[in-house]
């Protein structure tokens, strides 16, 4: 048996949530949810559902034995609605049936009486009405107003960025059963402890009565950080009530309608530069569309504020964020966690400045990149900055000037297909911005035959964290990597875990694993020294240790050091370190039809000393294509609060025929702030994809389009592109 997940996958042997509890082995649950975006809930009539064949029972808010609340940051999200309905898709009742068809038919039969109220979908309107999820967030560095006064060029405008659906291929789901006096849940969650805590709260049980087990996820991308919780809690509620296994797996349409997505932002910017094109001042206001409940919105807004100045040195900056409560399904974490919206807004401002000053955008970018020792607006001083290094590397390696000349040449004869190019630098902070979450533990067992078991809070969702953990344990112990098994994540083996999120899975759990493995290794070394002169092999040492009654297990805890406010200097340090890199993105635009292709993406990406180059390459490639999708074809649409793009037929993610050729160069460097000199890799490369947006603007300008000044709308669907092409009636 291979310990490698991937071999299970190619053989079709890996089991996901939907592969557990087949018909006849469990009951099925289906969610009856709100059909209106804003209403007073008057009554819920479950009798019509109960009358249907195969329906076992129907549960509503009054059946919840504990607290009807699952909001993790703000307590504003009942598991099942009580007196108000706040978005289409808000859960009202749970129908349990003998088959999934029976449960779904029951859910459709529940009669909800609700008095509709006026709904708000626009975040600016919500802000005007004072509907904020948390108080306004604001911070400022330097004398911003004076810096604007000094500026030779000031540009101001607005950026609209749409939401994004995760399209993890495995939909949300959980199976729950009551085993004696313990509730056991298999959940497709990035946050096993989050699920455990919510289930305990809802069921009125101590957390020790609830075990959450996560074998693997079929993709998540942030979509299962907070949003897996309600389905696990609902399945557990039903299982406890009925004392039978209950399975709740959403269909694709249900998943798309019910689950949260990346936040749409509406952003105002103002950017000031001196005569030399150096940035002096930046002011930005984010209106984050949070949806009907807080979910993770405040934390996501924080990351937007921390990344407001993107990869650039900005001496004076004022950042303001409104987390706005609207009547849409609560928006949630998605790879980048608020940073992509901030990067898009800053790069748009820079694009605007490039137009205003007639300096090429890549020149302006290069002139203003952060350098070693720069102090970010949040107060963090950069060390190990590689923004200019990776930018210059990409520029030289991929011969930027030759490419630009080739494109200018091509476009000069006004062809039908015009080309565009954009450079896209990244500087991305690593750590949870909520300091408490930057901790992890690991439990390592060495068996007497020299095989190894590692348990941490890291959830494997395709990002390869298991492989990295196995490599760390094997290298520290001196064990055979093929004999290291990284276990499924379980709240019984790893307690009080942070979600596998914020790109920190390998950093935190890897360091804890390193510490646990090291303490076992130290015991073996001490024993070897006393035992013989000849060095013992790993398995000899293990045998010897067991015979000597020395523990072959260790548990270790790691907390990222130096985070938070420095008591001496008062400087704020939200991140352990930053990840850098630069992409060149090229596009080709059909000036008749407004259709386009992203033709190539070339990247130099900073990986520290990679724990597994193959895995890191895959992360860069996957993230950047998601970034391209966000700003091009992925068109999330709501009509009066109802999701119109609610299937894979109407919401299109990139496919293989449309995906550009990718060339990723992993650039190594030293990093003393993460495990074995590595760097986190999950989220930063998403930002590269945003280059497609600016490359398309480049192509549109080359085609003669006169773009409206200071207005940036993402995504650039073919519809928007053609509209921009034709607004001057060119061609």
């Amino acid at each position, binding site marked *: 048996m291979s310990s490698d997940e991937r071999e299970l996958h190619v053989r079709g042997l890996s089991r996901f949530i939907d592969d557990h509890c087949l018909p006849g082995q469990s009951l099925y649950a289906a969610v009856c949810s709100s059909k209106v975006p804003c209403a007073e809930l008057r009554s819920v009539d479950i009798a019509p559902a109960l009358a249907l064949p195969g329906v076992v029972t129907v549960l509503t808010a009054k059946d919840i034995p504990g607290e009807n609340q699952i909001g993790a940051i703000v307590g504003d999200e009942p598991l099942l609605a009580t007196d108000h309905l706040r978005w289409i898709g808000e859960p009202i009742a749970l129908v349990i049936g003998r088959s999934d068809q029976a449960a779904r038919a029951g859910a459709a039969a529940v009669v909800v009486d609700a008095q509709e109220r006026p709904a708000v979908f626009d975040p600016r309107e919500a802000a005007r009405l004072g509907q904020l999820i948390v108080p306004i967030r604001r911070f400022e560095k330097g004398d911003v107003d004076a810096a604007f006064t000094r500026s030779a060029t000031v540009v101001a405008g607005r950026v609209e960025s749409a939401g994004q659906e995760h399209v993890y291929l495995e939909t949300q789901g959980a199976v729950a059963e009551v085993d004696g006096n313990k509730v056991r849940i298999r959940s497709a969650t990035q946050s096993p402890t989050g699920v455990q805590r919510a289930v305990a709260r809802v069921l009125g049980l101590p957390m020790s009565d609830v075990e959450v087990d996560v074998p693997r996820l079929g993709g998540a991308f942030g979509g299962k950080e907070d949003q897996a919780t309600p389905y696990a809690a609902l399945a557990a509620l039903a299982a406890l009530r009925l004392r039978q296994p209950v399975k709740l797996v959403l269909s694709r349409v249900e998943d798309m309608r019910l689950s949260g997505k990346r936040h749409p932002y509406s952003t105002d910017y103002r950017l000031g530069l001196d005569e030399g094109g150096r940035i002096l001042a930046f002011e930005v206001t984010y209106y984050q569309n949070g949806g009907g409940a807080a979910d993770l919105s405040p934390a996501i807004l924080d990351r937007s504020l921390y990344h407001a100045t993107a990869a650039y040195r900005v001496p004076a900056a004022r950042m303001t964020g409104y987390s706005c409560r609207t009547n849409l399904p609560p928006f949630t974490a998605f790879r980048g966690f608020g940073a992509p919206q901030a990067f898009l807004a800053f790069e748009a401002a820079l694009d605007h400045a490039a137009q205003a000053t007639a300096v090429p955008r890549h020149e302006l970018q290069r002139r203003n990149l952060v350098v070693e020792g720069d102090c970010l607006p949040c107060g963090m001083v950069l060390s190990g900055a590689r923004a200019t290094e990776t930018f210059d590397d990409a520029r030289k390696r991929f011969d930027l000037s030759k490419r630009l000349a080739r494109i200018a040449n091509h476009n000069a004869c006004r062809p039908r297909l015009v080309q565009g190019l954009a450079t896209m630098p990244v500087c991305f902070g690593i750590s949870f911005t909520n300091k408490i979450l930057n901790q992890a533990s690991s439990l390592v067992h060495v068996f007497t035959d020299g095989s190894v078991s590692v348990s941490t809070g890291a959830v494997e969702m395709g990002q390869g964290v298991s492989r990295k953990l196995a490599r760390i344990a094997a290298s520290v112990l001196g064990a055979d990597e093929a004999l290291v098994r990284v276990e499924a994540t379980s709240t019984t083996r790893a307690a009080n875990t942070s979600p596998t999120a914020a790109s920190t899975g390998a950093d935190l759990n890897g360091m804890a694993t390193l510490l646990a493995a090291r303490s076992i290794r130290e015991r073996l070394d001490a024993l070897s020294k006393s035992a013989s002169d000849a060095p013992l092999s790993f398995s000899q040492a293990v045998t010897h240790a067991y015979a000597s009654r020395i523990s072959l297990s260790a548990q270790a805890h790691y907390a990222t050091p130096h985070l938070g406010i420095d008591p001496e200097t008062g400087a704020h340090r939200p991140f352990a370190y930053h990840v850098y890199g630069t992409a060149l993105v090229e596009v080709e635009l059909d000036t008749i039809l407004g259709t386009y292709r992203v033709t190539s993406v070339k990247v130099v990406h900073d990986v520290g000393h990679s724990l597994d180059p193959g895995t890191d390459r895959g992360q860069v490639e996957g993230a950047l294509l998601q970034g391209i999708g966000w700003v091009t074809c992925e*068109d999330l649409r709501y009509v009066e609060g109802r999701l119109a793009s609610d299937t894979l*037929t109407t919401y299109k993610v990139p496919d293989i025929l449309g995906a550009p050729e990718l060339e990723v160069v992993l650039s190594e460097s030293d990093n003393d702030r993460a495990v074995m000199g590595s760097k986190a890799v999950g989220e930063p490369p998403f930002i590269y994809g945003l280059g497609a947006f600016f490359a398309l603007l480049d192509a549109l300008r080359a085609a003669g389009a006169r773009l409206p000044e200071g207005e940036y709308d993402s995504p650039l669907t073919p519809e928007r592109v053609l509209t921009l092409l034709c607004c001057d009636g060119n061609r």
Partner: protein
Amino acid sequence: MRLWMNEQEQHTHEPLGTAVLDYLRDQLGLLGTKSGCREGDCGACTVLVGARTPQGVEYEPVCACLTPLVALENRHLVTVEGLSHGDLGPVQQSILSEGAVQCGFCTPGIVLSLTGYLLCATSLTERQAIASVAGNLCRCTGYESIRRAARALVSSLPALEERGPKRFAQLAALGAWPRSFLSIADDLPLVANRQPPARPPARGTLVLGGGTDLMVQRPSAVRGSRIVLASSLAHSCVQKRGDDLAIGSASTVAQLERSALLLEEVPRLSHIVSLIASPQIRSRATVAGNLVNASPIGDLAILLLALCSKVCIESPKGVREVDLERFFLSYKKVDLRPGELIVEVLVPRRGPRRLLSFEKVCKRTHLDIASVNSACAVELDSDRIVNARLSAGGIAPVPKLLEATSQALVGSDLHSIDIAALTKTAQAEISPIDDVRGSAVYKRLLLGRLLLAHIESFQKQQRFSGGHS
């Protein structure tokens, strides 16, 4: 009903409209085939279906979520479990060695698509190997590693034997195809295509073409119905009939793609087909299904309208022919009465005299439903357009022949067409609405641009054929 399920012959009494995906997962407990979207868009449930035809045994990829059990009668169903005994095969090896697997949910589908490619490829090329996984969505990898895997697979294998038993044996020797499947291919009974004349459907039966739409829209209705497959009532080949091509109404898109006769009429056939549907859908979707469905944006309908097609309808009372543009009555309503069956679509043969242009614009270039699609066919006398048919979808409640605009084209010189006037004529013929595929304003704008693209295409085609000096 009898089928071969991987290495075993099986009999089932499940309702014939059951989705193969449910049969595999719920009845047989074979869980390697994943449920990703249940509408044929993601390919996570890709399986292979082998059938013995008069040309030999052929395997095709299909989406298990859209395939009713009845379509497996006397056929060989291959799932990832069937390919995973013993050592890993070259497809699985190349996926592993190139890191083309992350979360793993889409992986079994990709294994099946690539295996299907090895079974039916005319020759091994990187481009075709990559195209064979066009219907498999992956949200993790960015596809670069999947492309690397396809390339590695192609370069690791020797030249392929001719399709059929020799190919199967060769792939078995290479470890890409289980040996136990060789004798199954030998044992498969002939699944004869219906030859003319057609047989009318019995009362109370649901005639199913490929089911690629009905299985999405009304899966429980399909499951609960007495189903008869269109292929048992009507033929599925493309034949010459006088001055026409007669396309059997049960022809799948894949069968159209392989037709040399149709290629004469539609020179860019395989490109157009690659825009329309994934390999999995092409194996199932039928001509008649596409027409009866009457989607206002149906790609085949738009193409066939420009080609001046007629629908040939049979019932116990006799045969009638309807011009395709008269067949579509109103939104989702067609001129087809109970007991009637579309048996053929007749396309007049014009060969190289006719220039054809097909364009569709969608959010994603391939395998998406268009905002607007359009086809235009013209015949030229030197540079003068003597005959024109322009069709468009997404701009009216039905797939529409733009008769006035077509008329306006006739008599024009290909190199001095008044596009503005033509666009104005077209605008008067259409009535698009705002929907998720685009605003009405956009669709109007787009139609004008599509006209321009058609004209450009004709000019280019004429240059290439040397018709214009």
